[in-house]
């Protein structure tokens, strides 16, 4: 079945939401464990 324009806009919105969620999620991860990893590497 070929998607219609509404579904195609839904695809665009889905990718947008995914990208925003991933950016925010990894941002939290970076702030939480980033400094510890850098410090560990520096002391290795």
């Amino acid at each position, binding site marked *: 079945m*070929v*998607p219609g*324009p509404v579904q195609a806009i839904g695809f665009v919105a889905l*990718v947008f939401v995914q990208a925003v969620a991933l*950016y925010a999620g990894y941002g939290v991860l970076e702030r939480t464990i980033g400094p510890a990893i850098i410090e560990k590497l520096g002391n290795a």
Partner: protein
Amino acid sequence: MEVLGLSVAYLVLFVSFGFMVGVFFGFFGMGGSFLVTPALLILEYPAPVAIGSSMAFVFGTAVIATMKHHDVGQVDYKLGALMFVGIALGIEAGKMLVYGLEAIGQAEVVVGTAYVVLLAVIGVLFLRSAINQSSDDGDEPQSGDDIPEIAKKIKSYNIPPMVTLTDGSKASMWTISGVGGGVGVVSGFLGVGGGFIRMPAIYYLIGVPLAAAVGTSLFGALMSGAVGTFTYGLDGVVDFGVVTALLAGSALGARIGSGATAYVDEDDVTIYFGIMLLLASLAVGLGELANWLAMPILDTASFVLLVGSSAFVTTVIFYYGAQAVRTKDVGPSATAGGHE
């Protein structure tokens, strides 16, 4: 067992490949999308699916990059909006070209061959840049507000309708539409963001100062990606499992790549990136040859070459980064903000 419509092996592969592509994007400010379509072609995805999925990936990475550079980037939104029609028409034309070639059974061959040439040319440019990096020829204007002579000459031609850009200068709507349309065709045909031609085109042909050209090009990638996702999505050829897996890896990779710019001198790694692009060109060529000669072993070699060379360059960036952290001679404040 399948996740997002992908086998576990493919899921791991796409997340890992996305991670490497993200590291390149974060570190070099480019190199993302033009590795994805060839990888999907090598994995035997039909050309429209490879290109459509790559366009959706471009959109996702452009959203991430725009958020990342929201505070530091200068964007000429008016120019971006004026280019939109050209970009949309160009992508549609590029897509029609793909489907026209698909109808005669030549899409994979032509798109693959285009990638062999594209990757080789960009690879050679990176190698040349790496070799010449010590001798800065000074041809480029150093100020972010300057524009090159060729742009001044093009701007001097008064071909109506003329529009006023954000910086107060004027440009012909024909030049703006031509740039938007030309880049759109390349985006729609190859499934790339097209930043590697859009940014120079905005700078050299439309005459937007370099600092604003980078941000405006990013805005253009956002529009190209959105239009490409929509137009290929209409045909149901965007594989969302592939896009999700690639984005999951690349969003993390882009953060690490961008962070690595604070520790690693780009000049140390550029030559490896150039070699990687040449190997990627060879990999796509081998993939084409595998189909032509019906030799699956060449397909395997092609895949190993593409993923292996990407993994090697990622490792090199990490190695230099770890060395720099250990010696503690540089820190996050050195070049924070990345290459854009």
